């Protein structure tokens, strides 16, 4: 078991024949992901990386029975690509693209919600179920199979944390980078629900950061609904107010969205909060041994 993607996921890549699309599709295939084809408007009928290319997602779904899509198209076209996937019967959409206008994301998310589709991202590294499927741009070798579910707003910090979990003698069931934008498709709570139900997952790690109040909402939810141990780290304790820290969503607005406020809320909800980003692996092991 795992969540959202596994070895039977049938994956297409939107932006398949582009530079980014080609590079990451190759990496996903090498990991063992069941990539069944790709979409590049205007290049339908060709074969790329040994897989068929289609003009539209609708054609791709019809021909390959794809249920999952990895989106690697430029920001100006990404919301369109998300909505095309949702309208064509894709069930899990993973949008890696960084820099999509917020207004476009709001509309695309409403659209995926109306179609009962899971949207992960945008501006994220994607999702990986260890040893089964990598639908994203993360280095697959870091994510060894195990019992920890990982939810993160970040990219490289996710790899760092997964690596620590592995070095602590544990491993990952599914790891999801939910993205660092102000509006994202799948929230921490959405994933907590799935991990709570997943029998293979024994503990959950949340990697949050400054900006917004998603971690605080998650803390509220954990209180009454999550029985599995949760370990959390919030990046940005030293970030100044009012400055965007790389991610479009990582900004302390007024006095809202600080790391301390989030840590306090999580700790109050019974979550094991670590102050040092170097302590995640060890703390997860401690919590599991309790």
């Amino acid at each position, binding site marked *: 078991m795992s969540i959202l993607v596994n070895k039977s996921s049938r994956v297409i890549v939107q932006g398949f024949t582009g530079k980014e699309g080609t590079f990451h599709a190759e990496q996903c295939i090498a990991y063992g992901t069941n990539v069944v084809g790709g979409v590049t408007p205007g290049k339908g009928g060709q074969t790329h990386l040994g897989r068929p290319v289609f003009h539209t997602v609708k054609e791709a779904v019809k021909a390959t029975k794809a249920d999952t899509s990895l989106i690697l198209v430029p920001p100006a076209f990404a919301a369109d690509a998300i909505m095309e996937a949702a309208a064509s019967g894709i069930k899990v959409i993973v949008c890696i693209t960084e820099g999509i206008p*917020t207004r476009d994301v709001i509309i695309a998310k*409403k659209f995926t919600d109306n179609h009962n589709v899971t949207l992960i991202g945008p501006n994220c590294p994607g999702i990986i179920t260890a040893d089964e499927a990598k639908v994203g741009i993360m280095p697959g070798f870091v994510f060894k199979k195990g019992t920890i579910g990982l939810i993160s707003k970040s990219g*490289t910090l996710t790899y760092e944390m997964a690596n620590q979990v592995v070095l602590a003698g544990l491993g990952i069931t599914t790891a999801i980078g939910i993205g660092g934008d102000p509006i994202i498709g799948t929230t921490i709570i959405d994933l907590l629900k799935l991990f709570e139900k997943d029998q293979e997952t024994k503990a959950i790690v949340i990697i949050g950061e400054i900006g917004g109040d998603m971690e605080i909402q998650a803390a509220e939810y954990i209180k009454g609904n999550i029985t599995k141990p949760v370990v959390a780290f919030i990046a940005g304790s030293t970030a100044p107010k009012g400055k965007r820290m790389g991610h479009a969503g*990582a900004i302390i607005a007024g006095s809202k969205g600080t790391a301390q406020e989030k840590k306090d809320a999580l700790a109050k909800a019974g979550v094991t909060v670590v102050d040092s*980003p170097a302590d995640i692996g060890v703390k997860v092991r401690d919590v599991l041994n309790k």
Partner: protein
Amino acid sequence: MNIHEYQAKQIFAKYGVPIPKGKMIEKPEDAKDAVREIGGNIWVVKAQIHAGGRGKGGGVKLARSLDEVEKYASEIIGMTLITHQTGPAGKLVKKAYIEGGIDIKKELYLGMVLDRAKELPVMMASTEGGVEIEKVAAETPEKIIKVEIDPLTGFQGYHARELAFGLNLTKEQIKEFGKFAKALYKVYTLNDASLVEINPLVLTADDKFIALDAKMGFDDNALFRHPDISEMRDFDEEDPAEIEANNYGLSYVKLDGNVGCMVNGAGLAMSTMDIIKLEGGEPANFLDVGGKASASTVAKGFEIILKDPNVKAILVNIFGGIVRCDRIANGILEATETIKVEVPIVVRLDGTNAKEAIEIIGNSSLTNIISATDLGDAARKVVKAVKGV
């Protein structure tokens, strides 16, 4: 990206949001011509900087004659204005905005912003105009009326009514307010704004609404489809090092400490700052070299970090995913050849091709490069290096 009041008002005018007559000047000697163009017999001279709180800092003056306007313009242009938002160093004022005086009956507040939790833009109104809205939100939140607006259906009559009744407006005023609010929604949504704020929104003696102040911020991700707004960017309002970093695809924020850091990825970069602090050091900056870090971006990163004279050591923390660590290692060596890095550099490379990278660093003849094995080790070593200097 933020813009000046006079620029926000240009945008307001384009969409039919009423503003007072005004003109921006850069030289005090243009003040009188501006006044003649505006007309009337009372004027306000306002310093144009991006920070709020200009009035309290002496950057807004009421003038009753041509000579007074010129006098205040010459005082304001060239002054260093300190407000609660500029920091203690203040901001040099290069432009002033001269505006005709308004007969004020009531001061209100009207703004629009993205509500991240609700995932929708909200329009907010308050009877407490002219006061800091954060203060109102903290002390008397019931005095702020909020309506969420779905971008798929746009601004509706009920949005206007909820706000207007909340502001205790009369029947005649409600009609005027509805037109005003609808135009403001257009300003926000059609320009991909992240913030529009009118504080105060003025109800005039003849029951008209007029935007006395105007503040706008924009979604950087959407600027590509608004070349007219991109042109309004005022580089004088930004940190030159941050602009330079941006031009090279790096994301940089200067801080007050002495440990420089160069990291790939925003989350890891913030965490690196955090752990430096936990180990007893003070980070000098946030620097994300991005997913496509190369030898040249690393070199540029060093250059930018070293422009800050406070930096006594640098921590390079790279977790290679897309980025290959061996490439970064070569980049570090290349960079130290072209830029003289005299401070100790602690290097922690992990992930894709980390082994090769550590060999490359190990085989170099540079004595100021210290290798670290993990995040904790790296932070301890760099703090030690700073304290040893």
